[in-house]
């Protein structure tokens, strides 16, 4: 199965997340599909590591990039849970939380992109 096609699948699905959904659903779908795509990317890295045996330094860079994304993803989920709770109970301040959630999603998206760029730079065909 083409790696490009599997990544494109996730990307296209991510593009469709906003169709006919609530902001909460959109955020959740974006975040969850991001986790799927990162997991796939790490699978390609695993194959690359098995084949080309990159240095420990390179592996460490990828590990750190992955863990940076992971930390950001956890923050997104915390913000998402808070947003979901405020929207459900119609608590005042949901707009503020929505902004925090958007920022967290943007940060995690950047960290994900940094990870993918690093893998590509090391020669992994994504």
């Amino acid at each position, binding site marked *: 199965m083409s790696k490009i096609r599997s990544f494109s699948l*996730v990307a296209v*699905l991510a593009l469709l997340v906003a169709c006919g959904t609530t902001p909460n659903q959109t955020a*959740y779908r974006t975040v969850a599909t991001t986790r799927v795509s990162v997991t796939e990317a*790490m699978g390609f890295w695993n194959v690359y*590591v098995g084949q080309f045996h990159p240095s*420990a330094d390179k592996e460490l860079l990828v590990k750190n990039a992955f863990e940076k994304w992971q930390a950001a993803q956890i923050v997104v989920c915390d913000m998402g849970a808070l947003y979901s709770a405020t929207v459900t109970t119609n608590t005042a301040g949901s707009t503020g939380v929505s902004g925090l959630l958007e920022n967290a999603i943007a940060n995690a998206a950047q960290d994900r992109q940094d990870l993918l760029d690093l893998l590509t730079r090391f020669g992994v065909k994504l």
Partner: protein
Amino acid sequence: MIAILAFLEKAVEAEPRIADSVKKIFSKPDPTPADWQAERDAARQLTYKQLVPNSQLPS
């Protein structure tokens, strides 16, 4: 849009593993705090060594 959906259909057929994961995500109604917590746990449980078993790094 039709072209995207056609591509999607073929890609989903070819990658059932990804399709299953994403299908579950998309079939969920408005996520609750518990759904977000589950997604948090799913992200937190991932480890480098688990995803990269070929790694030479110490665990």
